[in-house]
């Protein structure tokens, strides 16, 4: 029998749930796997330790898996993501101050991202007129949907996200503190940090990520392509263990048990985790809640199966925001990063087609349907010319 001991890196976030439950609830052991979960503090560490072989697999931002495979921003290490750990789960949170400014300038209901994007553009304009500092938003990594979702939303309101606002990378545990201190005016981050900000009374959730895009691959299980070729048995076992764990996480009856398991690893309040898994979040310090069964998708709605459309979408964002050139070769490499075949082989058979899901697989709140084969057309729809390199504008 081949070596079935695995070392897997993760960042303490709710979408590591399938991984944590697979290990702590024994689904991995039942597949003959001994898994050591290693908690990490930065995506850079996770990526590098995966790249150089210190980890066999890792909980990783979907766009990082693609960036590594394309060799942009860093060493090129071909990665594949044979299991999708979570769809959605992000939210955009703003300071009470910015929320008040947005309310004052809104031409409708702020829970509509079209309205909020226009209101934000007005706030940006108004600040420019009176010579105030541009608004600053936190996100977690240059290659992340937190970055892309913020930009997508802002650009829909007519904001040039390189010129009119500042986007800064902040480690998730620093987000809340940075919002409280006024270092940032808002942020886009995954669960549980938006809720932590609301509970601390320093933030108001403006949008769930799924209001910007209905279906986005947020985190994947990533392995080196070479490792995957050399360890088929272990990988198939891991995919099965994760699929069982994701099913377990998804069952409403298990939420309390899952939250208790997660709380031990994440060191946050289990009640908050239950609300997160249920997609029922307190969005304002006054206790207002908002609910969406799409807030975070783990296991259900075909969330676990790798989807090349999602890879193409992430690549399109990478291109849109000037991180890589557009080419058919790169798109084809990117799509190969999310292969459904290993998943299908490990679990036997293909899954039933998805009803109730966006017809283009993404469901962005504005713009035409996304066609993976026509990224140029998709980008042209935004009429935002990105000539040359992105401008550096950081730091106060």
């Amino acid at each position, binding site marked *: 029998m081949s070596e079935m001991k695995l070392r897997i890196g993760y960042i303490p976030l709710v979408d590591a749930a399938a991984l944590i439950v697979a290990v702590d609830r024994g689904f991995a052991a039942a597949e003959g796997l001994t898994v050591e979960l290693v908690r990490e*503090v*930065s*995506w*850079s*560490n996770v990526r*590098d*330790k995966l*790249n*150089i072989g*210190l980890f066999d697999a890792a909980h990783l931002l979907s766009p990082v898996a693609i960036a590594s495979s394309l060799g942009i*921003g*860093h*060493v090129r290490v071909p990665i594949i993501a044979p299991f999708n750990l979570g769809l959605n789960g992000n939210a955009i949170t703003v300071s009470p101050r910015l929320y008040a400014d947005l309310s004052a300038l809104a031409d409708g209901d702020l829970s509509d991202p079209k309205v909020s994007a226009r209101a934000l553009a007005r706030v940006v304009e108004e600040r420019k007129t009176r010579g105030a*500092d*541009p608004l600053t938003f936190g996100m*977690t*990594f*240059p290659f992340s949907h937190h970055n892309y979702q913020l930009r997508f939303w802002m650009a829909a309101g007519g904001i040039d996200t390189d010129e009119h606002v*500042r986007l*800064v*990378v*902040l*480690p998730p*545990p*620093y987000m809340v503190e*940075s919002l409280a*201190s006024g*270092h940032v005016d808002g942020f886009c981050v995954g669960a549980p940090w938006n809720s932590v900000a609301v509970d601390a009374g320093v933030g108001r959730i403006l949008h769930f990520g799924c209001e910007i895009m209905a279906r986005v691959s947020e985190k994947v299980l990533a392995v080196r392509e070479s490792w995957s070729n050399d360890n088929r048995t272990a990988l198939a076992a891991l995919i099965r263990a994760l699929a069982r764990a994701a099913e377990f996480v998804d069952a409403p009856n298990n939420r309390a048990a899952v939250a208790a398991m997660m709380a031990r690893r994440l060191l946050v309040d289990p009640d908050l985790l239950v609300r997160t898994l249920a997609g029922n979040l307190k969005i304002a310090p006054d206790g207002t809640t908002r609910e969406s069964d799409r807030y975070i998708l783990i296991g259900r709605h075909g969330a676990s199966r790798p989807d090349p459309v999602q890879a193409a979408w992430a690549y399109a964002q990478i291109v849109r925001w000037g*991180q890589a050139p557009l080419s058919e070769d790169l798109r084809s490499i990117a799509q190969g990063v999310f292969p459904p075949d290993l998943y299908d082989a490990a679990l036997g058979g293909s899954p039933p087609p998805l009803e109730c899901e966006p017809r283009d697989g993404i469901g962005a709140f504005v713009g035409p349907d996304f066609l993976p084969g026509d990224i140029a057309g998709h980008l042209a729809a935004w009429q935002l010319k990105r000539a040359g*390199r*992105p*401008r*550096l*504008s*950081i*730091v*106060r």
Partner: protein
Amino acid sequence: MAETRKGSDSSGHGAPSPGGQRDSTLKIAIVDESPIRAAILEDGLREAGFTQVERIAETRNLLARVYALDPDVILIDLESPSRDMLEQMFQMSRAVKRPIAMFVDQSDSASIQAAVDAGVSAYIVGGLRKERITNILDLCISRFNAFARLQAELDSAKGALEERKVIDRAKGVLMKAKKLSEEEAYALLRKTAMNENKKIVEIAQSVLTAAELLK
């Protein structure tokens, strides 16, 4: 305030310094939340002839500090979440001096492994010859490892102190219960440990547990 960095051409580190040694002009930034380890590292670098060494402990204005400093080499503790912030800087600052992670050069995987094991990473401005930074990295690795050893020794010293306390308390229990002298109580613990092939502290702990139960 926002600042857009302009290319500062190659001024600074190209010029020979009065000390004669070219590397003393290298600007090195240390990003480490452990002040003791950072101090140990800075000492080592200064001993090795690098005079321009700066420590950055505060993460809040990390990027501003790094920009102001404009270092040639950035050494960062791998346990610092700030690494992701630096990555953004390297993404965006295509201006002139764009530091790259040491992981980019895969030709020396042994030294990369050693560095990661020691818990340190380096970002190096493109164009610096590899030999020039090899000794910096080696020095980092040995200082980081030395710090880890110190930490381990401290932990084991603390552990020894704890064991000492347990044994002393067990001796006290035996002296009282069996009317023994201190030497006799210790001899009894030691003899029992030898007979049962266990450590004295384990027997002492059993005595304390038993005493607690019989209270």
